[in-house]
């Protein structure tokens, strides 16, 4: 359903990309696609609303913020609004995860979160989730495994766990 998700910078270079179809078998084919897509879309104003274009028999929806360009590609007979929902999910969850400072630098510094985010949105072309809150929630789960022995936890983590225990018992 989804052929690729791309996150490029303001010069068309990769920040993070994920391909799900074999339309682009080699890395150079992928780079060529990214380059021509970027050149084609760079002048458009996709900052307030997501924009859309047809390109090489693919439908592509895209949205820009700061120096980041978000793209979602689907086949040309895909429901455009479904692709837009995926794009919105990706865009919003990245905004949540980067706490609204969405730019290239922040994205690269938190590349692990971006990659996990991509992993939670689409699995080999199949849409997993489009709700940004759910996606960000899944990615941000970051505490220690509660069943881990205390020896492996740092003091602050241990305190956190203790605090959670306490609040839980208090609210019951």
């Amino acid at each position, binding site marked *: 359903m989804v052929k690729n998700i791309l996150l490029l910078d303001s010069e068309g270079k990769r920040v993070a990309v994920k391909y799900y179809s074999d339309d682009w078998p080699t890395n150079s084919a992928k780079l060529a696609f990214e380059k021509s897509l970027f050149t084609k879309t760079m002048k458009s104003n996709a900052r307030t609303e997501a924009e859309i274009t047809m390109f090489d028999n693919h439908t592509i929806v895209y949205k820009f913020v700061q120096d980041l360009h978000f793209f979602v590609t689907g086949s040309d007979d895909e429901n455009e609004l479904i692709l*837009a929902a995926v794009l919105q999910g990706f865009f919003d969850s990245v905004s949540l995860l980067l706490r609204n400072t969405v730019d290239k630098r922040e994205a690269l510094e938190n590349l692990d979160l971006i990659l996990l985010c991509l992993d939670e949105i689409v699995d080999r072309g199949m849409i997993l989730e489009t709700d940004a809150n759910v996606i960000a929630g899944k990615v941000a789960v970051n505490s220690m495994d509660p069943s881990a022995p205390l020896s492996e936890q740092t003091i602050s983590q241990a305190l956190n766990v203790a605090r959670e225990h306490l609040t839980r018992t208090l609210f019951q």
Partner: protein
Amino acid sequence: MAQPLVKKDDDRDDEAEYSPFLGIEKGAVLQEARVFNDPQLDPRRCSQVITKLLYLLNQGESFTKIEATEVFFAVTKLFQSRDIGLRRMVYLMIKELSPSADEVIIVTSSLMKDMNSKTDMYRANAIRVLCRITDGTLLTQIERYLKQAIVDKNPVVASAALVSGIHLLQTNPEVVKRWSNEVQEAVQSRAALVQFHALALLHQIRQNDRLAVSKLVTSLTRGNVRSPLAQCLLIRYTSQVIRESATSAQTGDRPFYDFLEGCLRHKAEMVIFEAARAITELSGVTSRELTPAITVLQLFLSSSKPVLRFAAVRTLNKVAMTHPMAVTNCNIDMESLISDQNRSIATLAITTLLKTGNESSVDRLMKQITNFMSDIADEFKIVVVEAIRSLCLKFPLKYRALMNFLSNILREEGGFDYKKAIVDSIVILIRDIPEAKESGLLHLCEFIEDCEFTYLSTQILHFLGDEGPKTSDPSKYIRYIYNRVHLENATVRAAAVSTLSKFGAMVDSLKPRIFVLLRRCLFDSDDEVRDRATLYINTLGGDGEVVETDKDVKTFLFGSLDIPLANLETSLKNYDPSEEPFDINSVPREIKSQPLAEKKAPGKKPTGLGAAPTGPPSTVDAYERLLSSIPEFSGFGKLFKSSAPVELTEAETEYAVNVVKHIFDGHVVFQYNCTNTIPEQLLENVNVVVDASEAEEFSEVARKPLSSLPYDSPGQTFVAFEKPDGVPAIGKFSNVLRFTVKEVDPTTGEAEDDGVEDEYQLEDLEVVAADYMMKVGVSNFRNAWESMGPDFERVDEYGLGPRDSLAEAVNAVISLLGMQPCEGTEVVPNNSRSHTCLLSGVYIGNVRVLVRLQFGIDGPKDVAMKLAVRSEDEAVSDAIHEIVASG
């Protein structure tokens, strides 16, 4: 994991190129990956290293087999850590590395442990990873857990198992099919996305069982589907069921139509759109059924979201191809989209309007487009120019407005491709609409007054030379042409000289004036221009008097070169300057089979300047001249058709042979073009022995062997067959190449005296019905069809059986008949369920034939076709049906 990988450094804040991965290098990162082996794991550091590895992979870096294996083994060590963040990166890394089967075993137990963990996140991710890397044998071990996971209380776990099932169905269908019960339970899940994934999987499991799909759709359309995505899927499955049951219910109400219409009132836009699109794509949709769908799409047209506008205008554009009337209601909204910021939307709106427009709205539309043209990119302008060209062919009476429009935009700024598209369009209009000729030529003349593209100037001058002399007042073009001689570069000047002389040759009264002009060109600074002027002054003859031009001169000026340029070039290169003059007749006339890559390029439709009058006929002429020069075949009469060369050998074999089939009324001549690709051999007495035992109506009457075939210099041998007069006899011929081989000493190039007889098996050759049909297009099919009249019309219906697609079926019939598709009807729009294709041709005996083909998809893949033939001869109409019936 939210910590930055590298501490922010305030000094570098302003630096644009700052990146935490600056100067990253694969070797160094692989070294760093050794921390995975530390007895005391540092989760944060390990995560950072994995992120770096993933970054490298993401940038397109690849690991060698050994590197990948090392990283994989190191990563498996990290299962010891209980840090959730790190574990997730481990999952990601394993998926990225896609380990081989023997490596998978290492992580299987760790992943299976995670699959049974109490943490939902572990369970969900472990399922996805394991299903991604597993093979069939392992799958049976974990099947039990997967079935449980499908009905897990946690939606994330259930979705992970279902989505993995969708992927596994491709490789291990028999296993996944056993999960039907659990999947069916999951379809009823309260979690929206679980329902979506379960529905997708269930449909895929049952997709080959029509009844089961129908049942599934029936129960769900009544029930409550929570997720908009699932609802979209349901709409798709529903239209599939409708397609498959459409034929049985011709009574009026279409099953499930109410469901689709109900979805138009759904609260999610994606569902509304999916339903509207599904309705517009119903086969044989009525205007009553279309109306509600068009209404919602019309609302979308004025949405603030570009995606929504695009989706709507694109769908309406498709509807406009089949039901232009249904879309006219949206024309006002569509017109406001002409100025849309998003140029894809604007272009779709324009082309839709041009499709739905009627003759009376053309003028208004043109005015609007004129305003819009100035602020769009060239590529969109080309689309618009092409749309206008077809509009003009549709409404020939409107040529004046459209021609004006084209000439106006021709004057404006634009790149080469755009200008070429306009010039091509004008040329096509001149050719197809006789009334448009004079004004069109004048527009072109004005254009070359101020044209920066040498290519276009020369092409237009050439065209002017062919068409200008035939107009009512040829003299008015002379000024434009002669101006070029003063003002342009040498290439254009030379072209202008040729054009001038064409006027001189064709219009005797102009000859004295042309002579004066040509004489002035004798003082040009460029050799080519002077040479041409001298040549034409001499060939035109008559010393500037008003005399009729010699016929030979006319053929020289207007005739096309019947020798392939490539062959001429080779021959000229090989020619040694000597006493003996170069003989143009020594140039081989046969066309060397081009390499595959080149063949594709000229396969594009020949439109505009580059093609038409000098294009295809010249090869036929060349063949005709070639054949009539051979005494054995001179009595066969007029050549009806020559086929394209058919390869009889594989590429890169010792001897390359292709064959051209020449069809005469009572004869067929096979021209075998042979090339010897072995430098050490000289072939003599080359002959093709043809066995016609599978072609009963044919009998061999003559043959012309090739006396010698040296290395890499193509030669031809011919075999002629007699067949009943005017009858489209068909048959299969097997061929053997027979020859005498002589060894050649590659150093001296001399052949030995004695040779050895040898033969070489060629592939079979068939004469098919399409060989008796000449591709001849008509510009206005409808007019031609009407004027042919229904006297000899034959209509019948055929089932074409299961086909891959409608387009494939259409192409098969076109190539079976060998006719020329008209008005671009050979192109089948994606996803269409029916299609009409118009064909035209001339059948043996010079009988004009027109064919109207109506295709429809009947059932899942079965294609049905209605064939209507009109021709000037009843027997020919019947013959066409026979071709289809037996093909």
